[in-house]
C-alpha cells in the first residue's frame, strides 16, 4: 500500500482519541480499503456528524465535512445529489447515526443513494462520557442507565436492510481484515451501503460495565459475534444473543442519482426548447 500516513493530515495528529479506543482501528480499515481500490483522493468527500467517531474525518486528507450532530447523511445526500461523480463516505457513531440521525439514515437507505456509511458502534455516547445509546444492550450500564438499560437495542444492520440499503455488513475492530474487506465491498456497491463496525470505548463503556481494559473489551465484543458463514452450521441455541458478522445483505436496486439522471434526461427531451433556467448549470461552478 501507499504510505499509510499519506492519507492523513499529519499536521493534525495526534488525534483526540483515548488510548485503546477502537475508532482509530476502524479509520485504519477504511483507509486500507480506499488504498486497495486505488480511489482518487481528490474525488472523495468524507462526511461526519458529531461524536468521538465523527472526529475521524478531520485527520484524513480528503475533502472533509464535519457537520452537526446526526446530520452527516443529510449533508452527504446534498453533496452526492449535487455532484454524483464524487465518492461520498459517511463516518458516524451509533448515537449520531441511529439516535438523533436515525431519520436521515433510514431515508437515505430507502433512496438507495450511493453513499457508503461506516457506523462506529461502541454502544455508547463516548463524546458526552458514556450515556446509553440506541445500541446499548438491554441491562448494561451507562451514566444515564445507572440501574441497567431499561430499553432494548436496535439491530442496526436489520434496520438498514429493512429501510432499503443495498449493501449491509458487520464486522468489529477485532476482526480488522474482515472489516477492511467488507468496507472495500461496500465502497464498490453502487447504492446505499452500510458497514457496522462494533468497536470499543474502554474509557466509558468498558469501565462503567466493569469489563476491563481495551483488550478485555475487544474480547468481549469478539465473543458477542459469530461469522455469518459459521452460523449457518450452528444450532439456534449457539446463536442466541449473538450478532452476525460478515456480509449480511446485498441486493441490486436502482440507485437514486442514476434514476434522477434518467428522469432528467427524459424531461430534457420533452422540453428541448426550454429557454428558462441556466442550461448546463452543471458546469458553471466547476
Amino acid at each position: 500500500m501507499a504510505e499509510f500516513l499519506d492519507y492523513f493530515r499529519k499536521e493534525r495528529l495526534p488525534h483526540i482519541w483515548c488510548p485503546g479506543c477502537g475508532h482509530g482501528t476502524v479509520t485504519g480499515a477504511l483507509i486500507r480499503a480506499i488504498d486497495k481500490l486505488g480511489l482518487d483522493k481528490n474525488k472523495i468527500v468524507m462526511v461526519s456528524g458529531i461524536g468521538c467517531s465523527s472526529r475521524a474525518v478531520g485527520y484524513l486528507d480528503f475533502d472533509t465535512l464535519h457537520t452537526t450532530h446526526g446530520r452527516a447523511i443529510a449533508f452527504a445526500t446534498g453533496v452526492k445529489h449535487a455532484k454524483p461523480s464524487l465518492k461520498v463516505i459517511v463516518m458516524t457513531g451509533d448515537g449520531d447515526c441511529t439516535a438523533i440521525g436515525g431519520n436521515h439514515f433510514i431515508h437515505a437507505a430507502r433512496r438507495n443513494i450511493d453513499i457508503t456509511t461506516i457506523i462506529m458502534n461502541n454502544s455508547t455516547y463516548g463524546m458526552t462520557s458514556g450515556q446509553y445509546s440506541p445500541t446499548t444492550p438491554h441491562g448494561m450500564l451507562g451514566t444515564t442507565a445507572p440501574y441497567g438499560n431499561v430499553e432494548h437495542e436496535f439491530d442496526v444492520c436489520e434496520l438498514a436492510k429493512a429501510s432499503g440499503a443495498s449493501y449491509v455488513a458487520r464486522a468489529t475492530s477485532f476482526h480488522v481484515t474482515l472489516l477492511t474487506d467488507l468496507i472495500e465491498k461496500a465502497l464498490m456497491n453502487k447504492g446505499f451501503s452500510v458497514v457496522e463496525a462494533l468497536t470499543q470505548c474502554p474509557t466509558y463503556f468498558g469501565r462503567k460495565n466493569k469489563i476491563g481494559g481495551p483488550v478485555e473489551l475487544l474480547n468481549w465484543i469478539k465473543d458477542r459475534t459469530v461469522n455469518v458463514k459459521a452460523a449457518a452450521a450452528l444450532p439456534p441455541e449457539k446463536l442466541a444473543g449473538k450478532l452476525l458478522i460478515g456480509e449480511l445483505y446485498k441486493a441490486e436496486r436502482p440507485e437514486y442519482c442514476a434514476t434522477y439522471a434518467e428522469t432528467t434526461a427524459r424531461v430534457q427531451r420533452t422540453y428541448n426548447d426550454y429557454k428558462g433556467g441556466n442550461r448546463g448549470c452543471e458546469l458553471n461552478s466547476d
Partner: protein
Amino acid sequence: MPKNAKLMQGNEACTMGAIAAGLQFFAGYPITPSTEIAEMCSEELPKFGGKFIQMEDEIGSIAACIGASLTGKKAMTATSGPGFSLMQESIGYASLCEIPVVIVNVQRMGPSTGMPTSPAQGDIMQARWGTHGDHQVIALAPGNVKECFELTFKAFVYAEAYRVPVIVLADEVISHMREKVVLPDPSSYKIPMRAMPTSPAGYKPYGADPDGGVPLMAPFGQGYRWHCTGLFHDESGAPSGKAAVADQLLHRLDRKIEKNVQALEDYYVESMDDCDVAVVSFGSSAMAALSAVRRARKGGLKAGMLRLKTIWPFPDQAIRRLCASAKKIIVPEMNLGQLVLEVERAIHGKAEVIKLGKVTGELFHPDEIYKALKEAF
C-alpha cells in the same frame, strides 16, 4: 403588454428569481405557505440539469443544501415558521463555516402550528437570533410580487459575495398574492459567483483579512482537500480551542456583515423628506401603510413612508437619516412588536416610536394605520 409580463404569485416569482440567479439545487419539505416553491422547483430544475430533492424534514433540507453548496452549486430551501425553527442549528453551521445558502421563510402565524394559512411577521427576531451564539445573517423582506423575484435574486448575490446564509423573509400574503410582473430580460442577469481560489497550492480555506474579509471558497472534488467543521477553526480549517483563534474568527465573521451595512441597505421611501410622522414597516403590512400615508398626505398631513427591504443587518444609519424630520414614528407589524425594538434602538430617543402590533392573523387595513397616523398628529 410587454413580452415578459406575466400574472404570477409571489412564490412563483421567488422561484424564478432563484433560477435567474443560477439556482442549481433545491431541497425542501412541504409546508404552507411556502410549498409552491418546492413544487415549482421540482418541475423546473430538471429541465436544465438542476437538482431537486424532497428531504425527510427541514433539518435534512438545510443540511442537503449546505452539502450541495460545498460542491460549488447555488442552493436554496423554502419553509415557514415550524420548519424555519428546525433549520436553526444548521443555519448557524452555515454561518460559522461560511457556506452560501438561501433560505426562503414565508412567515405564518405562530408560535407552534399556530394558524398555518394566516399571514404574520413574527419571525423577525428568529431570523436574526434563531441559532445559538453570536453570528450574522442577511434577511430581505419583499413588499410585493416583483420584489419576490428581485430580492431572491439578490439573496444569491449576497450569499455568494459574503458567504453567509441569506434569508428571504416573505409572508403569507406577499407569497400567495398574484400581481402582474414584468421580468427583466434574462440576458441582463449577471449570475453571481463566489470567489474561488485558482490553485490548491498554499490554499487556506479560512484565510482572509481579519477585518471582515471573505475567504476564497474551493468547491469539493477539485483537489483542495480542505476540512469544513462547525468547531471553531483557524485559517487552515483546523479545529482550535485557542482563545485568540475564537476571538479573531467571531470578530471577522461579525465585521464581514457589519462593515457592509450600508452596501446592504435597501428600502422604499415616499414623502419622507419633510415628514412629521413617519411610518416604518415592511412586507405586506407596508402595503396598507403606504395607502394610509398617501391618504394622510392628501388630507394635508405631513406623513412619510419608509419600507425596509433589508431587515438584517438593520440599517441604523439609514433609519436615522431618513427619519431626521420625523417627530413620531409608527411601526405597524403583524406581531407584538419586534421591528419596533430595532427602530427604537436606532432612533435613540430622537423621535417618539409608536408600536402598532397585530396578531389576529389578518392583514392591516389601511384605516387602522390611518387612524394611528391621525392620532399621532
